[in-house]
């Protein structure tokens, strides 16, 4: 009986998270276009529905009915699988993210996370790297040189920045002493947010995250100016839309993880009832998402070799120094 309840509970949570996430991703595209429009002295979409609110739906319908082209010389299997890998990996990240405090429902204590894994953070890194396979395979399988170059860049960038990304959160792990994300959030309750103890790590994390989700100034794999869209150059219709959704889902995931690790998760300036604690989480994630959109409107794109150099020669030593610094601090404080 307990197993049945558990299954029902998990299924409901999965469906709810998936539905909300898809909605968020759809409207994130609208939000990005609107905010960028504001930055760039133009309106953004405002024709479909009030304030352009139905634009994502129109886009979705359009993508669905477009002709689905597969290049003649493409590796068909990989070509089809690649976008699926990307979107699956991006969505799976949300399995371990704690959205809010435990709530009481039908006499059961239900935690607002799909799976409270003890190796939550490890899972995050493992799955996030899988997403890059989608990009690499997608670029390679389309039999297009621009796609191939995009794929190569993605592979190189992934390896470089995954290392720095993992090292940047190491300080948090050392303080928390656990990989369980729910536990990490609990430890931050009452204004003990990790950003106060690990401010540099937070900045490193944001920079690495930019590279991880391929956004300006690190949008090498798709650099539309030189590679004419890079890895997704041969994709059309829903397959293209899947890559697109994966990118935005990944963006939300990266922000959600930053909120969890550095900004105290669902912990807020004042306490809301447990059933509403997710509001803080959403607000913090939203601010980070806004930051990512904002910087896209500001920066030019770096060059491929400069990104590599920046990753290995600048970020990596700094993240290592941060770990050493954290270690020294802990020893001196006798933690």
């Amino acid at each position, binding site marked *: 009986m307990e197993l049945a309840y558990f299954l029902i509970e998990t299924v409901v949570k999965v469906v709810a998270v998936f539905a909300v996430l898809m909605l968020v991703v759809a409207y994130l595209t609208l939000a990005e276009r609107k905010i960028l429009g504001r930055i760039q*002295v133009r309106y953004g979409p405002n024709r479909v529905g009030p304030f352009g609110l139905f634009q994502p739906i129109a886009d979705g319908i359009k993508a669905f009915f477009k002709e689905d082209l597969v290049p003649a010389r493409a590796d068909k299997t990989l070509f089809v699988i690649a976008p699926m890998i990307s979107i699956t990996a991006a969505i799976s990240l949300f399995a371990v993210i704690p959205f809010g405090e435990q709530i009481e429902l039908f006499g059961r204590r239900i935690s607002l996370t799909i799976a409270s894994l003890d190796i939550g953070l490890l899972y995050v890194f493992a799955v996030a790297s899988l997403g890059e396979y989608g990009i690499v395979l997608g670029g390679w399988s389309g039999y297009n*040189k621009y796609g191939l170059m995009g794929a190569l860049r993605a592979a190189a960038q992934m390896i470089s920045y995954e290392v720095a990304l993992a090292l940047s959160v190491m300080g948090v792990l050392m303080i928390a002493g656990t990989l369980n994300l729910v536990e990490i959030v609990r430890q931050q309750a009452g204004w003990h947010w990790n950003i106060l103890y690990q401010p540099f790590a937070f900045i490193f994390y944001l920079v690495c995250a930019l590279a991880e989700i391929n956004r300006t100034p690190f949008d090498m794999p798709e*650099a539309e*100016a*030189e590679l004419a869209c890079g890895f997704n150059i041969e994709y059309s219709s829903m397959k293209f839309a899947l890559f697109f959704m994966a990118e935005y889902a990944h963006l939300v995931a990266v922000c959600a993880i930053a909120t969890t690790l550095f900004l105290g998760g669902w912990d807020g300036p004042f306490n809301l009832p447990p059933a509403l604690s997710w509001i803080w989480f959403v607000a913090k994630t939203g601010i980070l998402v806004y930051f990512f959109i904002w910087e896209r409107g500001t*920066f*030019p794109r*770096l*060059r491929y070799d400069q990104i590599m150099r920046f990753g290995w020669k600048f970020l990596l030593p700094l993240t290592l120094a941060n770990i050493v610094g954290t270690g020294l601090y802990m020893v001196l404080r006798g933690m």
Partner: protein
Amino acid sequence: MRNAQITPRKLKEKFPDAILDTLSFREEETVVVKKEAILPICRFLAQEPALSYDFLTDICGVDYPDREKRFELVYHLYSMGRNTRLRLKTAVGEGEALSTVESVWKAATWFEREAYDMFGLTFEGHHDLRRLLTWDGYKGHPLRKDFPVKGEDFEHYEVPAMPPDAFSTMPEEAGGEREMILNMGPQHPATHGVLRVVLKLDGEIIRDAVPYVGHLHRGVEKLAEQMTYTQAITLTDRLDYTAGICNNLSYVLTVEKLLGIEAPKRAQYIRVMMAELQRIAAHLLWLATHALDMGAMTVLFYCFRERETVIDILEDITGARLTPSFLRIGGLAADLPDGVEAKIKAFLDDFPRRMREYETLLTKNIIWLKRTKDVGVISPEKAINWGLTGPVIRGSGVNWDIRKAFPYSSYDEFAFEIPIGEHGDVYDRYLVRLEEMRQSARIVRQALQGLPKGKVRVADPRVTPPAKEELGKEINAVIRHFKLMSEGISPPPGEVYCSVENPKGELGWYLVSDGTNRPYRYRIHTPSFVNVAVLPEMIKGLLVADVVAVIGSIDIVLGEIDR
């Protein structure tokens, strides 16, 4: 101009047998030389310290089917140090070859390819004599006088098979070695039109590059030979379509030089004012696209906002946004409309603040610096040898601006500075163009303040139709009007070269008149043509991402490369 006359004397001393004739028309020196002696003469002209014609402006052919030696090859030389031009002409018969001057001026490479393409002239020793504007396998040479103009005059024409490329585009056919061939363009978001560059890549490093142009070739020079001098103004708008007024200006100045007339002062000031506004608009478009190529999307929209204001002003004056065709031989089509001066003034007051906005986003931005500094460097010596013009040569530190060197249209009455760079990289060219926009705004303000009163058309019955009031009273006026409108203007026989400083560089016309109402030869020397020829030189050894940075920084418009 006495300066120029030492050249024929020196040449006659050195090559007594090879100099056939020396001519002087409208203060332009022409030396006719023997075909066989062209290379030694060119080398002498370029290397003799007292002459130092270090800059090759243009090479073009002219076809005279009735002559014994059918073609004439015309070289336009310029001496930077002495600020003097010289025209060399040599007669070439059908099927004869003459030696290339590539070894003297690198700029000759593309000009000679164009002459080969358009006239079928061959050059001995040219390292890469292929067709330039048409494709390999094209039949005929379009600028020969016997090449048909209308569709029905053509015989059955078969489209040749796919043109073979400099490099094969398939990796396995390229040898399957370390290198990959990447075909960039003609459909590519960052090649600014239909430029095609074939890159040989080692990873992302460019080992070699071959640009292909001509996808937009419309045969403007041939078309113009069928039009009257006034009709041919409309063709000029469509060359560098970002700077229609400046193109108009260059062409009408050349015809005016041919006729020996000068526009009234007021018309000259308005021309300057409009040309400088157009320069601002063209540079804004450059900045917008250049920044977008580097991923700085927001700058694009900011620049388009201001460009819109300028284009609105030009539309108020000319009635058109892109293709004004507003200048006339001997003046302007009309005077300024009411209220436009206030609009220009409002724009000028607002513009410095907007410039600061762009600079905030780019000039000190570390990513922008990293992408542009020491990228696409071209040394001043190379820039001169390759015949570069405009902001590209000034970015390399060569102080060469036609507005100062050969002031036209009263430019000598305005105070402005010519910005020059130091390193000749993408960043310096960026700074040069930004400063040029400020200087242009300065000129516009001066033109507005000092605008003289008076007519905007010259009082010359050869070019200006009679006023409307006269038409009702005088039968002679009606006849004159009719003849001017139907026949057009007939300049005296002769040839002139005249150029202006366009936003992209030196835009010049070489017009040959045979005394009729149509130009016998309508040769356009366009800045983008010479600037894009140097592209492989600039990008070898750089990365793929730098290609778009360099293309953006030399600011090409394919409309004027391909003509």
